[in-house]
């Protein structure tokens, strides 16, 4: 790796300000009886569960939820990639605003075949400085993460956001070229760097 940092003092977003998925509203409501503050004072208010058998058979309430499908959305993609670490700093791509929620989109891959389950995920990357030579590595990292974490019906498209990098076209070409991506992933050193970036994704 380059010994000198390319950008030693980037702007950092506050962790609390990053977009997150809010818990469904119902968990607030339960507050006092359920998982709220008083849970410790009242270990098992719902004692009737104990009577029915050893295990609280909550299968009924679960099967209600079961029917509710939760499709993969932009926030989920964001959660997958925002925890990747920057190769230069021990800071997440989310906090550095290298990836951001509005720059992620999911579209049908074949818009003219409505029934097709194929989807394309587009992630636009904003390097912290316009001449960052690590943009390719970051792009590759995001790509690897998504390919490991999304089902086969998803196509992954990672690009540099327009106007944020001096050699964006060149980098985009590298990231889009399947052969070159595959070749890069055979490179032990490069994979080492990427594995290090992905370590924080848990």
């Amino acid at each position, binding site marked *: 790796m380059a010994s000198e940092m390319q950008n030693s003092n980037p702007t950092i977003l506050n962790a609390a300000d990053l977009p997150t998925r809010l818990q469904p509203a119902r968990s607030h409501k339960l507050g006092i009886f359920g998982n709220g503050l008083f849970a410790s004072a009242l270990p098992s208010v719902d004692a009737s569960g104990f*009577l029915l*058998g050893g295990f609280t058979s909550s299968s009924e309430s679960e099967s209600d939820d079961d029917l509710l499908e939760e499709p993969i959305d932009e926030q989920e993609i964001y959660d997958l990639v925002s925890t990747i670490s920057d190769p230069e700093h021990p800071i997440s791509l989310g906090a550095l605003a290298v990836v951001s929620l509005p720059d992620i989109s999911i579209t049908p891959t074949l818009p003219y075949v409505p029934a097709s389950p194929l989807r394309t995920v587009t992630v636009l990357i904003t390097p912290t400085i316009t001449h960052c030579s690590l943009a390719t590595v970051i792009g590759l990292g995001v790509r690897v993460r998504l390919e490991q974490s999304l*089902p086969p019906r998803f196509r992954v498209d990672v690009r540099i956001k327009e106007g944020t990098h001096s050699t964006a076209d060149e980098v985009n070409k590298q990231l889009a070229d399947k052969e070159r991506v595959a070749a890069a992933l055979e490179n032990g050193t490069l994979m080492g760097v990427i594995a290090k970036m992905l370590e924080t994704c848990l």
Partner: protein
Amino acid sequence: MSALQTFLLVVDHDKQEAKQIAERIAQDVETKKTTLIEVVQSLGEYINDEDPILRGKAVSYLTAVIKSLPPRFLSRQQIQVLTTFFCDRIEDGGAVAGLDTLQKLDRFSRALAGEVAQAIFERFQDLQSRSQSQRFQVYQLLNELMINHRSALHNMGDHSMVGIVDLMTGEKDPRNLMLVFSILKVVMVEWDISDHAELLFDSVYNYFPITFRPPPNDPYGITAQDLKDRLQECISSTSLFAPHSIPSLLDKLDSTSPNVKKDALNALIACINSYDPDTVSRYSITIWDALKFEVLNAQEELLSELSLQALQDIAKRLSEGVTRVSDQLPLAQYMRPITRECNDQLQEPQQKQAKPAQQILGFISAASVASFMLSVQAVVAPLLTVYQEADGIAKQRALLDTLVVLFDSAIKIFGEWTTRTPETNTANPLLEFKDQFSDIFGQALMGVIKEEVSFRVSALRGFLRLSTLRHFFQDNEVGLFVQYLDEILLKEESVGRDDLKKEAITALTEISKHKPKLIMDITFPAFVATLPDFDDGTNSNYLSTLESLAQISVEKDIFETLVRRLLSKLNVLLQKEQPGSVAYPRAILVTILYVMSQRKMDQDPNVELYYDKIVVSLCRNAAVSASGKANNNILKDATVLDTLGRLCNLIVRALPRNKQDEVAESIYTLYSSADDFSPVPFSQSASDDQQRAMIISTYLLAGLPTDCANLPHTSPNMSALLFDVVKRSTTKCAPATHLALLRHLALLVNKFLPKSDLSLATELFATLLPSSLEGKKLSPESIKTLFWLSKALVLRLAPKTADLLTSLLSLLSSPDEVTSTTAARSFAILLGDDDVLSATNGANIRLLSKQRVFTTLVPLISSKIREVNVAGSEFPTTEHIKPAYLTALSGILSTIPPYLVMPELPTILPLLLQSLDLQTSDSQPVRTATLETLAVIIRDTGVGVIEECGHIQSLVTRLLKTTEHKPASDKAASANGPRLRVDALKCLFLLAQTPASDAPAVAKAGKLSPLLPVKAQVVRSLGFVLDDPKRDVRKAAVDARGAWLRGVDDAPDDDE
């Protein structure tokens, strides 16, 4: 043969006998049978021998004799002669030991000590070529001289100093170095070393950094840290080293090894704290220039922390004796470049390096009053300017955070309101900015749009610091803050994760410790005013108010007021005639229960008052309600009664003994007269409402001590009472009442039944269980009663425990499916933790009970399942039996600590795998419990054990099968619920994540991961799980797949 000759012969192989010979001679010398001169003369022919070993032995002989003499025997002259003799022969073995013996004697003079030292320095020029143990002896002699005759060595001045340094130069053995370092430290501290500072410094600094690693099983137990500590003491021993030590240590910071940097920083800190302040001042700015980089571009957290510590320590040293702050102080000169750097970095406070700048500011300003004054003077005004000109909230927020860091330092220096330490005389320099702070933080907290949560949280934290800072705000100013907090909690809608509200409650709680009166005067009335007098169930806003009240009522006064107010609210509700929601009175009771459970009630002086107001009065009310004579149905509700019961239980436990006896008399009458309420036991016609009152009675009973007298219906024995309770618990009734009856029975049997009467309980058990094997068909109520009765007996390890368990197990083989399934599910009851029959309530729970149940049941279950497997499908009517046994097993496993399970793993693992095969939807609880057990096994023991049992492939296959999502068809619910799929994925994750820790790295190297054969299968299957409809499942699948891709290494390529 002479004594000497015998000695020479045996000394090598029989130390004991050699010692005896020496002792004998010593005795002869003592009794004047022989003289010391003769002993020395007898050595004659040997001590001039050419063989050094023989010479050494001869000298040892003399040493051994001297050692055996009584300490005051030798005359001054004899000592002198002997010393000279030994000094002449100092290179021969034994002489050093002889000198060591001599120098311990009272008559050993200073002059002799000098002679010995001289001999050591002159004759041991070649010391480093001798063996470790010889060197050690010499150092030890020197060390003893240092301890006993230091002035003699000190008088030798430079001579002894150079002598010591020459002697030890080149020493490498850790044991010897420990001694050498401590000898040298004395020289450094006590000798005049001004001409030789560099020589001395180099003699120890050559060893820096220490890279010693003790060999495995090192018998001497010297660690690298021991050596580091001693070396560090030497380096930091005298200010005269500073010109050499500080530049050298700062140079070491360029090292690439974090360990070297860590040692250098630690040594630097030691130097800063030990050198005199003038010296520290001379190097302060040099050190800052070097450490700045370590903090601003921190690579390792620890290094940055140590650097900050060093910077702070310099400020502390330079503050020593400072009474008035001025620009000319060395402290001011040191801090100038630092505050300048911080100001520069904080111009753009949301950039990465602003964070370290904040840390520097925090550490420097917290060093002393003087450093705090200087920091405030240099930083606050510029920060406020940047704040006014800031173009965005993110920037402002970062600035607020910076100010909060300063406030933290202020608290460290000036204390909080509750701090007991004496106050500083100096005025807090922040007071100058008080109004500005109040405006800025007030505006930031209340004057921005509600969605800016994190900004407002920062403002709130700052305001809180200022409110608790001693002698800063006036009470009315803190009061304003309290009002803001009330407003946030009472009037504002929830935003996002409610971080602001959570912080607001924490802040109120914190303030209540410092200014309880403000909370009582402002917050309390405001909150209580929002509590409704009545609730019809449509609006539950009171919940959050009650939650807030409960959390801020930590202080005694506030707690008491809260309980009083809530009780009067509750009493109003109990008088109401219109039917309202029971949730509200219950919430009030829960709140009281919560605040009481947070306190030590047995030390509360008001506990008897609470007893009257809550236990006596509310129990009586409940009794009246049960008889149908109350205005409303609140106290007929099972959940209300349950909460009230818990509250009573808490209070009863805290009562003094005489009151507890009073409780005992009233557990069934509930403090009512016979006209108002007829007690349940032995009542022929108790209504459902009356039976429900047993909930309260059970909780009261649970709170009483084991040896409580006055318990009703217990003499001559409990037989009748037990019989009555069992009769009720085997009859169908409402679930809550039923549970209370079961617990009541268990409490009586476990806690109160005397050991001599245990047969009563076992007889009862026998009457409930039909003896014949055929047609075992029991009602679920009877089965529960059997299990709770067994629970009570098993926990106290009553005799016949094994028989009881075997009888319970036989229920599973019942041809009646309902009986079998109900019994199977009930096995979790046996050892499950219960709120009522608990250690807190003084239940009789023996330590070995869990182990006993486990070791009794598991072999039985295991053999039964094998039996069923063999019998196969010959008996189609008994298909439910195998699942029943597996259910029972999982019920027990879920209540057993994992360390009990591990030894039985080879038996249990196949059973667990079989329960994963139950791919039906009603087997989900069983499989969930199984997966939880598996997860613990995998986490604690790693893959190794499972591999040894040879089950990796079968385990992985079953886990993968459980992760599959099959869309629910029309009638059957899906076999694998989301929770089950997540649990299975978690097991897969743990499999790949947990390293096989037992195998040392070396042995593991060449060996392939046992998971490798299934890796491709797992990665492929999980690829499909990534498309699961549930988000939680997908998340678990991502983690599991990542772990397998990362953690399971492929076979190395063979293309070498």
